[in-house]
């Protein structure tokens, strides 16, 4: 059994990967952050049920997934996304490292990007604009925006893994 403050600390340390996992369902980081908050409250309410940090994290992923799908069904009348079976499979493998080292590495790696690529990322992730809007603002074709985002993520991923000293395989 874990005390409530320990559960809060675990969830806070896992905020980034948990929010990312929920965003894989919602496709909306703002909504994913709201779901994460709800999950924190629920977790603390049932503190006496958790036996280990792994138990908390696994429960949070599955509860976040279910809550996100519920919200989308209520809001849109349907859920169109990755299947429940696949999301459960993803939840089982989802990385659970803390946010600090990743954020530090990312800060360094972003500094290596060109100003244009930084601007593209800023529009997409800070202003949360759709790729159609990003393409319009930057005067590019939407196809090239998807390609550029994919390329930037690949480059950043390699850079971050290098900083974190991980094996890429």
């Amino acid at each position: 059994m874990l005390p409530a403050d320990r559960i809060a600390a675990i969830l806070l340390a896992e905020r980034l990967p948990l929010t990312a996992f929920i965003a894989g369902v919602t496709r909306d980081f703002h909504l994913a952050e709201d779901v994460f908050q709800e999950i924190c409250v629920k977790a603390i309410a049932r503190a006496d049920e958790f036996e280990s940090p792994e138990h908390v994290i696994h429960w949070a992923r599955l509860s976040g997934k279910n809550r996100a799908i519920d919200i989308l069904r209520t809001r849109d009348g349907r859920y169109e996304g990755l299947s429940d079976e696949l999301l459960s499979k993803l939840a089982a493998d989802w990385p659970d490292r803390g946010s600090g080292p990743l954020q530090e590495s990312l800060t360094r790696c972003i500094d290596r990007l060109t100003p244009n690529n930084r601007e593209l990322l800023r529009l997409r992730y800070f202003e949360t604009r759709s790729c159609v809007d990003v393409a319009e603002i930057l005067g590019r074709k939407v196809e090239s925006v998807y390609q550029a985002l994919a390329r930037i993520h690949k480059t950043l991923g390699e850079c971050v893994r290098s900083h974190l000293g991980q094996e890429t395989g």
Partner: protein
Amino acid sequence: MNDTEFLEAVMRYQDGCLDAEGLARLERELSDDPVKRRLFAETLVQAAALRGEFRLDAFRAPEVVAKHDRISRRGVGTKRMAVALLSLGLLIGLAGSGVVWAMAKPRWVVATSRVAALVDGGFESARDPVPAGFPQQVGNWGGDGVELIAEGASEGVRRLRFARAEADANTPQGRAIACDLFQLVDLRGLIPQDPNVGNSVLELSAAFSDTRPQNSNPSVSFYCQIYLFRGDPESIHQRWPSNIAEAVASGSASITTLGGGGWRDVTAKCLLSPEADFAVIHLIALPNMRVGMPDGLFVDDVRLMIKTQPLLPLRVVD
């Protein structure tokens, strides 16, 4: 699918632009290949971290955001900045580094009541026409070019149409890109005097409707924002919006639409700071391209609720 093609599919998926065939293919790739599942996870975590990184960037040097904003000018920039600063509210609430976290011990009986100081959220008795500009007194609506329409309301008889974008009065040279609506709400008397009552949360909700045909362009984002300030509510208009940074707390929520009608509720949440004297309620319709304000954008049923126990389980302490 090689890694680059796979990442492109992930980008489309996250953008909501993957068709049924593409979604089925992405599902197969992820189901069959643990390496792809790992790459998917890393990419989403990276995207979440990028979001945090740009927020931190804005926190460190807010002026950089305006400088980098290609479509920002003074008027535009301040509106963008408002959104950025509200994002920081969440940053401080959830992602702040270098702060100490404490548990707000939950009380599971939540008391909720409507804040009557937000006047006429249904626009039933608002002055017609709605006064132009930022309001100078509590309890009055004011803002850009808005019109009251006596049909099609979400509740009651009247709804409010976002008709024209106008620059802020204090930055008349600014370019107008969004249509804003404001009300000042006096919060004195709402702050619990009993320190054992626990934290309270203000929830600002509004129903927005985009009645253009389905899949109309440009997309339009509706924002529901609340800022809490100390001091005299009737003097804040003198420096709005440059004084947004002085807010003691804030909350924001938004929705992006492409027409299709119907009412969509948006709710922004904000911890009720004991320092707060009044709130600025700010509702926005923002076309996501530099065009005039599209016809058919409405808001109705604006509500401000107070909950005696926050949904946020955490709070920042010194």
